[in-house]
């Protein structure tokens, strides 16, 4: 502790440079934590899915619907214990700058198949009974200040027109991957408004035993193999993972950018540390003359590097940890449950530690190995 004043004094020598170095470390670790959180959120989303839930899509692709009539035939298959369906709606709210997921579902079967969606019983009943009612995630309440019973109008993009819903319930997801910023409404109302097209975007199939998943999926697809809309059935986890793999290269890109940013900042910090140590060659020689040992000087320079790296890390990681919940960030709905995890903070601190070692090592070794007589000759 008695050397702390010396460390602080040295850091205060070029205040602007110190502040800029700390800010660059903070920015690097903020970006690192943000990009890594995108990757971990995507990975967590890909892990979501009940073991006993299958998803049946149009084999051509997600954007192509399936006939609503397929439902009864799927339900009749052996091993199928429950069924629901949903349709992506893609409506926009307000000026359209903020986005949240919204889709039409069959209310009772959907909530039965997704016990992760939790809401009070009276709100659930109110939602079931109102054909134009909507159920919303709790985050939408805090984001828009909506209230129960309030009418909310979405502008249809895929299905044009103004769509007005009455908020009948607010749910809390027990699994963050469900997303707490989703609006769901009655498929029946949706179907009526689009002229009884009788379509479903996808089916969610509940089965009796997870070990039967492959066989049941095959039997579903076999039923529709020669129809006009053949199906592709897989586990819900595969379904989620297919979304995540759409982000696959993005994840790789983000990891790479994260590392590149940290490396770039490492060079900046190392440069600042080396400049600082080089400017003090004479002073280091004087301290050696006074009796400061090589090891002590090595330690002092490393502590300086550590103070810069750790202060930057605390600022950057702290900002990432606090900022995203404060602004309810969810990547425009694409990153439900986005959060900076403890593991990201730990990895961030380790990165800061690595930054300290990498940026401090060369100047610290230089200080420790400085030949005092030659250095003094230059000063004198």
């Amino acid at each position, binding site marked *: 502790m*008695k*050397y702390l*004043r*010396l460390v602080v*004094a*040295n850091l*205060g*020598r070029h205040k602007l440079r110190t502040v800029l170095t700390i800010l660059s470390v903070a920015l690097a670790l903020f970006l690192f934590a943000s990009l890594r959180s995108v990757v971990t959120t995507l990975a967590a989303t890909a892990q979501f899915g009940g073991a006993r839930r299958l998803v049946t899509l149009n084999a051509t692709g997600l954007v192509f619907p399936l006939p609503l009539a397929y439902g009864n035939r799927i339900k009749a298959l052996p091993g199928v214990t429950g069924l629901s369906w949903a349709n992506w709606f893609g409506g926009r709210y307000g000026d359209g700058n903020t986005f949240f997921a919204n889709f039409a579902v069959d209310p009772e079967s959907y909530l039965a198949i997704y016990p992760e969606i939790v809401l009070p019983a009276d709100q659930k009943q109110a939602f079931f009974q109102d054909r134009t009612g909507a159920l919303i995630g709790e985050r939408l309440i805090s984001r828009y200040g909506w209230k129960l019973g309030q009418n909310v109008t979405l502008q249809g993009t895929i299905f044009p027109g103004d769509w007005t819903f009455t908020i009948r319930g607010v749910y809390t997801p027990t699994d963050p991957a469900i997303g707490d910023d989703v609006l769901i409404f009655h498929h029946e109302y949706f179907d009526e408004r689009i002229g009884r097209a009788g379509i479903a975007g996808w089916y969610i199939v509940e089965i009796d035993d997870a070990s039967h998943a492959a066989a049941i999926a095959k039997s579903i697809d076999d039923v529709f193999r020669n129809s006009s809309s053949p199906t592709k059935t897989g586990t819900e986890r595969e379904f989620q993972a297919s979304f995540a793999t759409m982000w696959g290269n993005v994840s790789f890109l983000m990891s790479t950018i994260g590392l590149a940013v940290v490396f770039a900042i490492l060079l900046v910090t190392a440069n600042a540390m080396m400049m600082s140590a080089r400017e003090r060659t*004479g*002073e280091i020689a*004087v*301290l*050696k*003359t*006074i*009796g*400061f*040992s*090589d*090891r*002590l000087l090595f330690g002092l320079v490393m502590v300086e590097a550590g103070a810069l790296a750790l202060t930057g890390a605390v600022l950057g990681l702290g900002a990432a940890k606090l900022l995203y919940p404060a602004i309810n960030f969810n990547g425009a709905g694409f990153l439900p449950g986005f959060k900076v995890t403890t593991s990201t903070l730990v990895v961030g601190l380790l990165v800061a530690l690595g930054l300290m070692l990498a940026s401090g090592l060369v100047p610290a070794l230089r200080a420790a190995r400085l030949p*005092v*007589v030659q250095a*003094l000759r230059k*000063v*004198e």
Partner: protein
Amino acid sequence: MALVEIRDVHKSFQREEQRIEVFTGLTLDIDAGSFTALMGPSGSGKSTLLNLVAGLDRPTRGVVRVGGAEVSTMSASQLAAWRARNIGFVFQSFNLLPVLTAYQNVELPLLLTNLSGKDRVERVKIALDVVGLSDRADHYPRQLSGGQEQRTAIARAIVADPTLILLDEPTGQLDAKSSQEVLSLLQRLNNEFNKTIIIVTHDAHAAERAKSTLHLEKGDLIEKRAVAAAR
């Protein structure tokens, strides 16, 4: 009794292709409680001798002993610890740390000791009082005159109560008045506090304040003379 014993010391430097012999068998003693001025032309080996005595440099051959400790054979870490306890060093260009106040500069050698914070405060106050700078403790070097800076450097050199104070051209950058103040201070340290002082100087007036002078030329001791005047 000899505090510093130099025995058959050889010292050479390699400068590019050329080997420069500074000392070729220098032998001399400096007594405890003495105030010795080291004089001689540039390149005569004065500063090199000071560095050898301070353990900042090692002889190519021979023995340097200070207070019975053989400096020339100590490891780097032993030398650092030994210097912290036994040597006070004053430079021509003061070499105070600009980011520290006079007080903090003087305190530096005490950081290497096991003294408590309270004891360090006490010792720094005494050292600053001895050099007459108690009222400048909170000033940074840039706020001090050259003479005040050098007196602060002397306070730093004496604060840990070293056996030996070494000064390399301490008045080289000072005006006449400040030089006199510094030299009077050194005399006081020698007379009142019985500090052994070795001062490297080109200045004959400065040398006159010492009790004895050593003249070096091309690494050889050509004259050792007691100075009777100035006391």
